[in-house]
C-alpha cells in the first residue's frame, strides 16, 4: 500500500483547494490582455475598470449583497484584520470591548490579542463539546461598551457551523456590530448576505478554487470602520492598492462555480459521513466537532496513543494529504486551541487527524483513506510507549 504514489488523494481542502482549471482559464486572458490599471483614464485602464466592476457585480450576486458592499482584499487574513481592527479603532473612546469566541482562526485571535495589548478588552466566549458557541454567555457579555462581536461562521479545524444570525441579533440588540469570518463557509455552504444579518463578513478565494492571495470583505452599507491600507483611495476610498484584477476575476468565477456545485455538497457530506464511520471503527478514537452542524467536507477524528504529525507524514507517504491539530504540526508546538476549547484532553488533541474533502473526492478515495489510516494508526501504536497493549482492529465496517 505504501508506494501507491501515482495517484494522490488530496483531502486537505480546508488548508487550501487546488485552483480550478476554469478559474485559471478565466484569469489567463486578464493576464495577457486586460492588464491595465483600473484607475487609468485611457482605454487599457477603462477596460480593466469595467472588468473589475463586472466581477464585483458577479461576486455580489452570488453572495446576496450589493456590489458597493464588497471590498476586495489580498486574503482572508487581511479581511479579518481589517474588519476587527477597523471596527475597534472606529469605536475607540466610545466603546472598548470586543467579543469573540474561543475557536476563532488565528487571523482573528491574534488580531484580538494585538488589540488587548493596545488597551481593548476582549472576551472569548466558550463553546460546547460540539463546538457550538454558548449563546447565553454571549448574551451576558454583550453590553453597550461592546464595539464588535466576531464569531467564525464555520470552524476550519472541526467544521462546526455556528448560528450566525442569532449571534448577529444578540450583537445588534446591544448596539454592537457583528462580523463573521466565513472563510471556511463560503463555497462550502450557502451564504446569503441578504438574510444573514451580519455587518461584515470575510472570505478567501483559495478555500473554494481561486488562488491564494485574494479575499474580500463585505461591509454593509452605512457601516463605518477604519481603513487598514491607506493610499490612493481604491475600493471607494476604503482599501488602497492597485487592484489585482486577474484574481478578482478568478474569485468571481470560483464563486459562481461553487454556487453551481452547491448541490454536489450533499454527495460530499455523504463521503464525509462514510469516512467518519470508517475511522470511528478504529478502537480508541473519537469524533471532534459537531455530529450534524458540520461543514460537508470536514472530518476530524482523534486517535489515542498516537500523535498527529506522524500520522500525517505516513499518510502522505501513502499518497494521502491530511492535516492535524497536533502540537507538532507545522510551525506550531501548542496543540490546537480549538480542540482544547471543545474540552478534548491535550493527549487526544495531539492525536487528531483532519481530512477535508471537496467535490473532487470519490468513494474509492474514502475507502482507501480508511484502510490507510487503520494501517498507520496500528503501525504507530505498536511503537507507542503508552499504548496499553495490542488490541485487534475490527474489520472495516461495510458501507451502508
Amino acid at each position: 500500500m505504501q508506494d501507491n504514489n501515482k495517484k494522490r488523494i488530496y483531502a486537505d481542502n480546508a488548508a487550501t483547494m487546488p485552483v480550478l482549471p476554469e478559474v485559471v482559464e478565466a484569469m489567463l486572458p486578464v493576464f495577457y490582455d486586460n492588464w491595465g490599471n483600473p484607475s487609468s483614464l485611457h482605454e487599457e485602464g477603462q477596460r480593466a475598470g469595467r472588468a473589475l466592476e463586472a466581477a464585483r457585480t458577479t461576486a455580489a450576486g452570488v453572495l446576496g449583497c450589493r456590489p458597493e458592499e464588497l471590498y476586495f482584499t489580498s486574503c482572508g487574513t487581511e479581511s479579518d484584520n481589517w474588519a476587527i481592527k477597523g471596527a475597534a479603532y472606529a469605536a475607540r473612546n466610545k466603546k472598548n470591548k470586543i467579543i469573540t469566541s474561543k475557536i476563532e482562526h488565528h487571523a482573528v485571535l491574534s488580531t484580538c490579542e494585538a488589540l488587548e495589548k493596545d488597551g481593548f478588552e476582549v472576551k472569548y466566549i466558550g463553546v460546547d463539546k460540539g463546538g457550538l458557541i454558548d449563546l447565553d454567555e454571549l448574551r451576558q457579555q454583550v453590553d453597550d461598551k461592546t464595539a464588535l462581536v466576531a464569531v467564525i461562521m464555520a470552524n476550519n479545524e472541526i467544521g462546526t457551523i455556528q448560528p450566525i444570525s442569532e449571534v448577529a441579533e444578540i450583537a445588534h440588540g446591544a448596539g454592537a456590530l457583528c462580523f463573521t469570518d466565513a472563510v471556511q463557509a463560503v463555497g462550502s455552504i450557502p451564504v446569503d448576505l441578504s438574510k444573514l444579518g451580519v455587518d461584515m463578513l470575510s472570505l478567501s478565494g483559495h478555500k473554494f478554487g481561486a488562488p491564494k492571495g485574494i479575499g474580500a470583505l463585505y461591509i454593509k452599507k452605512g457601516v463605518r470602520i477604519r481603513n487598514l491600507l491607506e493610499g490612493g483611495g481604491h475600493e471607494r476610498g476604503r482599501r488602497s492598492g492597485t487592484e489585482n484584477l486577474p484574481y478578482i476575476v478568478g474569485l468571481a468565477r470560483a464563486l459562481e462555480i461553487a454556487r453551481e456545485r452547491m448541490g454536489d455538497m450533499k454527495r460530499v457530506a455523504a463521503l464525509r459521513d462514510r469516512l467518519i464511520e470508517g475511522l470511528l471503527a478504529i478502537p480508541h478514537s473519537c469524533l471532534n466537532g459537531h455530529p450534524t452542524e458540520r461543514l460537508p467536507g470536514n472530518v476530524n477524528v482523534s486517535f489515542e496513543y498516537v500523535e498527529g504529525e506522524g500520522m500525517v507524514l505516513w499518510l502522505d507517504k501513502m499518497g494521502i494529504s491530511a492535516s492535524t491539530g497536533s502540537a507538532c504540526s507545522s510551525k506550531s508546538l501548542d496543540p490546537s486551541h480549538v480542540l482544547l476549547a471543545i474540552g478534548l484532553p491535550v493527549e487526544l488533541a495531539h492525536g487528531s487527524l483532519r481530512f477535508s474533502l471537496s467535490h473532487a473526492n470519490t468513494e474509492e478515495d474514502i475507502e482507501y483513506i480508511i484502510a490507510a489510516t487503520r494501517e498507520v494508526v496500528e503501525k504507530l501504536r505498536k511503537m507507542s510507549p503508552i499504548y496499553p497493549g495490542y488490541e485487534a482492529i475490527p474489520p472495516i465496517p461495510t458501507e451502508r
Partner: protein
Amino acid sequence: MVYSEKVMDHFMNPRNVGEIPDADGVGMVGNAKCGDIMQMFIKVSDKGIIEDVKFKTFGCGAAIATSSMATELVKGKTIEEALKLTNAAVVEALEGLPPVKIHCSVLAEEAIKAAITDYYKRRGIEMNFAPSEHSCCERDCERRKN
C-alpha cells in the same frame, strides 16, 4: 518545515524499535501533554557496553527519528561514552532538524540518560543525568494553522 532525508528515513524505518523484556535499564521522558514520550531500554554487558538498545516513542516525526538515531549512536558504546551523547550530536547525525524540533533531540538525549540512570539505580548507585521533568511549556513557537 522540511525534514531532511535522513530524518524521514529514521522516521519511516526506525532502527531498534521495541522493548527489551529483561533490560538492565529503562527510562521514560516527556509526557503525553507535550505530545512526546520516549521510552528507552538498554541491555548492558558486564564490561559496561551497551549491547542492545530499543525504544518506544509517542511523538512526531522528529521524536521518532531522534529516538531511532540516539539508539544507533549508543549501541555498542560503553556507558561512559553513551553519557557523552549530546542532542547536538543527534541533530548532526540526522543532518539537521527544523528549529522548532530541536527539543526532540534534547528529549532523545534525556531518554538515553534516564535509561542509564535506571541502570545505575538498579546497581545501587544513585545518579541522575536527566532533568526529572521535561517541560514542553518552555518551548517557543510560532503558531500556524489553516
